[in-house]
């Protein structure tokens, strides 16, 4: 390689966009990025045209790449718990749906309903939508119909401990006909206000079981 070209390439390295904090990148902006260190070959495949591929005899210098994607919303716009859940929602609900379908093969011919238990109505709606999509992706039949409880049931159940409340609600769903014999309910639950993980439980025929 021409030594001047090599020198120019090395000098260009100083002005290349680096996602690390520095003179041109604040720490705040750097933390908005989700990055991964990959090999040159992987970077060329994932972002064609942005990186010169390795030469047939390899590179003179040791090269790697840091591929980054920016978050949709800047930090602080959503509550930390909601941000933690929603930023990886697709992966989380996909795991929950896979668990539900594989652990309960006896419910494969039923229509799934999804009920999120999260304090925020907006986040609940996102969780429900994503979970239904994930169930459908796993080949399950899904209904948009909601399961309902009478006002008196809600009044009693919301004062119970979680370990008792979910089985009680499940029994009431079956008793009031909201969840029929051909249905199964996948409940996506945030059990503790300080956690950032989602749990799942299944209600079928008035019986409740925690999946994870």
């Amino acid at each position, binding site marked *: 390689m021409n030594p001047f070209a090599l020198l120019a390439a*090395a000098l260009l390295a100083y002005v290349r966009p680096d996602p690390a904090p520095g003179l041109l990148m*604040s720490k705040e902006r750097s933390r908005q990025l989700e990055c991964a260190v990959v090999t040159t070959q992987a970077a060329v495949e994932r972002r064609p045209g942005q990186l010169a591929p390795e030469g047939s005899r390899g590179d003179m210098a040791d090269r790697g790449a840091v591929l980054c994607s920016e978050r949709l919303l800047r930090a602080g716009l959503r509550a930390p718990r909601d941000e933690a859940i929603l930023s990886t929602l697709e992966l989380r609900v996909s795991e929950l749906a896979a668990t539900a379908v594989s652990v309960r093969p006896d419910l494969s011919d039923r229509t799934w309903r999804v009920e999120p238990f999260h304090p925020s109505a907006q986040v609940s709606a996102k969780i429900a939508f994503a979970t239904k999509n994930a169930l459908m992706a796993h080949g399950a039949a899904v209904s948009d119909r909601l399961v309902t409880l009478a006002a008196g049931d809600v009044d009693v159940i919301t004062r119970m401990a979680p370990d008792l409340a979910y089985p009680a609600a499940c029994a009431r769903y079956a008793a009031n006909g909201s969840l029929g014999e051909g249905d199964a309910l996948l409940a996506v639950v945030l059990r503790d206000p300080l*956690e950032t*993980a989602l749990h799942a439980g299944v209600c079928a025929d008035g019986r409740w079981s925690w999946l994870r």
Partner: protein
Amino acid sequence: MRGGERLARGRSTLRPGPFVDQNLRRRWKSQVTLPPHTNTGAPIPTRLPRSPAAALVLSGLALGSGCVTVYQPLSGLQQPVVVDPTAPNLSDVRMAVYCVPGPALSRWETNKLCQRVSTLFEHQGALVTTVEGPAADGEDDALTDDERPVMEAPIALRMELRSRDLYTNNASLSWAISLMTATVLPAVEESAFAVDVVIRDGSGFLLASESLQGRLITRYGVGTWAANRAADTYWRREDQRLFGDISSHDLSEDLYRQLSQLAYNARVQRQVLEARAPAEARP
């Protein structure tokens, strides 16, 4: 050598402190060649040289020993957390922390990491024992005989920490260019690492796992030193500054916050599994 090092209930007000500070210094010592005048220990002349050019070169080389290390969270480390790492989130939870030495973490560093993480969870009210080595399948079988009588109840959470080097670049070309430009252009070294965290219950059931990845970049030279010093002094906000032990502090804070959140999530997950009766779990 296996065996716990400490077992104490956390009521202390001591802060765990950054675990990466020594780690960084060791890397600097082992991989970086400092400019010659610092290596030989020759004193910087007190009498100013007469030639302005010589003075410029000399002061440049003197300042060239300055470096700025920055930390960038890559994946997982910058996730928002809800728990307060200083609050009693794990009151009376019996916990074992297994720190596994490997190519990325020496035995000494593993020991240090384990001590700091142990202190972190003790502050949160947990009863912690630390073990150097991987978690075994059997319940509390990694504990020494001295520890067994103290552990009245079975261990609730077993946290295993492993570290991997993802990428290390000691760019000799950048050193050459930096020296050719009297360190106005910086020499850049960078490394990326991953801390793999796995939390199981006492019987070995997986409760939570995460791979926390970050990157450390050290830039050497008068140019980067002066520019960043000026930026820190004149226009960067206090929480955006880069000089000093900021990178160690930021990385430690991120790591502690994520470990605290993971442990809390695992604790709730364990409660859910306990509530799941075998008869209910199956049709």
